[in-house]
């Protein structure tokens, strides 16, 4: 494979963004040229990614499509490559971005051109994160995503946008700088920042604990885990709908991906050592944030807290170190990417019409928006993990994996599943059913073509992977096995040494 397909899917959106920059916005009519270019770019990117998925060989555990060029002379290579885990995230990114761009047409009223540029640049950085096989390259893309996201929240956000944008930026930056120290330290310990080489060289055990904590600080903020999750509700509430979608669907997944690729792969001992910490934080996240979600009166905030709870399942699954747990957490991330994106889009549909996110200003929506109510119901049920939706597969596998390792944690996490049902169904009841009391609501129209089509596409995907998760499982199977085997090998080696 000589064609640099990973670089092309990474940098294609950047080229698209450049062309969008060249378009001229017409007064009053919006900027159709910019919209068409960005839709075209993101769709081309999605189809290339599908092609990539098709050509991807899921029987090989090594990294595929590896590209390597000398970058910082002598010591750092610009290295790209994917395995069965990262390709799913790339697929998710390439799938969600066109959806976001289409949803922009309805929800972004000012400076559409700049918004599209920010989204496309962000797509480049996100795909770059999942492709990179070098710590410095990874860090570069991981951090660079802050710039467009900061602008998206700050320029197009709601009333408290400044506070939220600053909180988002500074929280994540503070989390990541420690990772930079750790990356440089790894370079001086092992002599390389190439992930595949570090897997083989193996970092000495005594260094692993501190390095793990440094990486943890970054991923925990990004994921986010309790107690550093507080930036997420603010950022979600104030961000415009497409911004929330990107944030929930993809940016959060970078943290989980980081745990899988770096924490477990590079620091097996430390990962084992800190498992109780992760379990504790995950259980708190699942139960506490679900309870918090119950009490919210703002729809976006409720979904934001539910994201934190779902991410709790993800971390729990990753650190079970067994097949079901890890596979479950990856599916959970994938399906949460679809479901939370859809939920934010649903809220966005209402918000665009009434400019209110408060639950109490709705009620009886089913009488005027029947199609919308149906779609919303599918995603609400998917959130609580109804069998037949992709949410079920992830949560079920994670719980199975956790039961094998720690009975108590699994029991406590199951309470979270019940709470999830409580908050989402209660939300649905208050918004959709009941009497139509708000007169303002009577005038609004049901979903239009663009809104309807993206929601239907998401709905079909959620149901498809709920009934038939095999394509996802098959893709990642070998890579996950490889990850767990390497981990177990290291751990048993130490036990025999003792």
């Amino acid at each position: 494979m000589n064609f640099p397909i990973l670089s092309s899917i990474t940098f294609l959106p950047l080229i698209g963004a450049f062309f969008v920059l060249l378009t001229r916005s017409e007064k009053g009519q919006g900027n159709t040229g910019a919209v068409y270019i960005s839709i075209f770019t993101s769709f081309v990117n999605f189809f290339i990614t599908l092609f990539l998925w098709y050509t991807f060989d899921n029987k090989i555990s090594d990294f595929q499509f590896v590209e390597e060029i000398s970058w910082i002379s002598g010591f750092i290579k610009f290295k790209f490559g994917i395995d069965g885990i990262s390709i799913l995230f790339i697929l998710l990114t390439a799938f969600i971005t066109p959806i976001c761009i289409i949803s922009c047409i309805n929800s972004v009223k000012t400076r559409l051109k700049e918004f599209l540029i920010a989204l496309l640049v962000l797509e480049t950085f996100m795909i770059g994160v999942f492709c990179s096989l070098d710590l410095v390259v990874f860090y570069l893309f991981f951090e660079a995503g802050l710039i467009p996201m900061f602008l998206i929240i700050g320029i197009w956000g709601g009333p408290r946008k400044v506070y939220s944008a600053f909180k988002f930026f500074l929280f994540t930056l503070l989390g990541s700088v420690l990772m930079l120290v750790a990356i440089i330290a790894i370079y001086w310990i092992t002599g390389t920042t190439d992930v595949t080489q570090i897997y083989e060289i193996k970092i000495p055990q005594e260094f692993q604990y501190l390095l793990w904590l440094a990486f943890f600080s970054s991923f925990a903020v990004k994921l986010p885990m309790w107690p550093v999750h507080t930036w997420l509700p603010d950022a979600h509430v104030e961000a415009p709908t497409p911004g929330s979608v990107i944030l929930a669907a993809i940016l959060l997944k970078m943290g989980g991906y980081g745990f899988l690729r770096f924490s477990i792969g590079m620091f097996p001992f430390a990962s084992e050592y800190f498992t109780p910490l992760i379990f504790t934080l995950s259980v708190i996240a699942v139960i506490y944030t679900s309870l918090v979600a119950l009490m919210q009166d703002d729809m976006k905030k409720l979904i934001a807290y539910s994201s934190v709870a779902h991410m709790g399942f993800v971390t729990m699954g990753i650190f079970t170190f067994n097949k079901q747990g890890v596979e479950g957490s990856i599916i959970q991330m994938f399906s949460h990417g679809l479901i939370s994106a859809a939920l934010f889009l649903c809220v966005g549909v209402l918000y665009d019409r009434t400019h209110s996110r408060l639950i109490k200003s709705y009620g009886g929506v089913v009488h005027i928006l029947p199609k919308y109510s149906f779609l919303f119901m599918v995603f609400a049920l998917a959130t609580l993990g109804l069998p037949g939706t992709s949410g079920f597969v992830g949560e079920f596998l994670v719980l199975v994996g956790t039961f094998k390792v720690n009975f108590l944690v699994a029991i406590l996490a199951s309470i979270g599943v019940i709470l999830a049902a409580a908050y989402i169904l209660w939300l649905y009841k208050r918004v959709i059913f009941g009497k139509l009391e708000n007169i303002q609501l009577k005038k609004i129209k049901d979903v239009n073509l663009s809104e309807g089509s993206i929601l239907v596409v998401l709905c079909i995907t959620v149901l498809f992977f709920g009934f038939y998760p095999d394509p996802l499982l098959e893709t990642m199977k070998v890579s996950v096995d490889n990850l767990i085997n390497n981990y177990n090998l290291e751990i048993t080696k130490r036990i025999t040494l003792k």
Partner: protein
Amino acid sequence: MLAIKFLIPEIFLSISIFSLLMIGVFIKNSFEIIYRLSLFVIILIILIILSGDSESIKIFSESFTIDRFSLYSKILILISTFFVLLMSKKYIVDIKNNKFEYPIIILLSILGMFIMVSSNDLILFYMGLELQSLALYILASIDRDNIKSSEAGVKYFVLSALSSGLLLYGCSLIYGFTGSTNFEEIANSKDFNVGTIFGMVFILVGLAFKVSAVPFHMWTPDVYQGSPTSVTSFFSVVPKAAGIAIFIKFMYLPFRDVLNQWQYILVFMSIASMILGAVAAIGQTNIKRLMAYSSIGHIGYAIAGIAAGTENGFKSTLIYISIYIVMNIGAFACILLMKRDGKYVEEIEELSGVSKNHPMMSFGLLIILFSLAGIPPLAGFFAKFYIFMAVIESEMYTLAIIGLVTTVLSAFYYIRIIKIMYFDEPKKPFEKFVDYKIHGPIVLSCVLLVSFFIYPSILNEIVSNISIF
């Protein structure tokens, strides 16, 4: 005399300065012609230096070194002076400061810096330092009818004279205890007793003052704010480059064997500068004052590289200062565009909502500010990355962690400006004009900062040939 041929840049510079002075005296209203000739002179010297061979050689009984290190510093000084002079033309004319002395004094200070970075001897070093400092005092107060500018000049003069005195005292102590003023001989005198260490500390104080490192930074905010913006932009880049260069030379040449003595002083200076630069800038309302604190912070990072005490350390500092120059020139070019109703404004609030009316300028400033904050993939990130590579190589984890945490703090005030430009309600637009002399440097600076990540080792390759020893 064979040695003369190595001095061609300096000799050419001196002759041009005096000829320009003569032209200025005998031709009326000669600012325009002298301004153009000075730019021409700078380009010529760059060409002379680039065309010459870069062998390292010591002349005048080993008191004057010409090597890759000094040539690199000189090129840096020349290029940054060229851009600063280029973009400040409109400003100088607008504030009616277009006296013919202005470019000449700038050239004179460069001459001082040339002597300083090439010196291999305490006496020559001091001569160069004083020549540049005297020129800088005049520059600070060049807008002599403006009370703030005069105040800045006097403040700078008094404090700087004090630090020069300390520095000279340090030089005499070192001469007294080692019996030599030559850098090599000082390094080779094996017995470094308390007297020499004292001398070294005094010299460190003087140098720290010149590059405005904490705790000798007090003059910076006032002088930056009081001087005309064109002079501030000069102050924030050119003397910094020269000062850091001679700082490196002192630490790595005469005092290379007493690393354990100066390392902690530098670590302290570095941490203090980084923290003060980050914290004190948060409350500023004047953008020039903010840039003063920002430059204090950046000098902290540059010193962190020197403090590493390794070859990678000083190379990373050279890279840092080069990228810093690119960023600061761009930032000051943007500040020079802040003109409303015929008056230049300096308050950060005046930038409110500027992205609506001046999208290109604010986008340029956005890139520069994110780069100053050190966010990847912009060049500012790589500058910091190289510094921390060197720092962690020397296993100074505390310095690295404090340094990186202060980048988060300093990111706060940089993104605050972005917030004001992009999130706030627009005010009356600035005067619209297109002047390639100002817009050119902004575009160039942004292009360099953004495209740096494509080939980030370009500066490493240039710097890798440099050695001081």
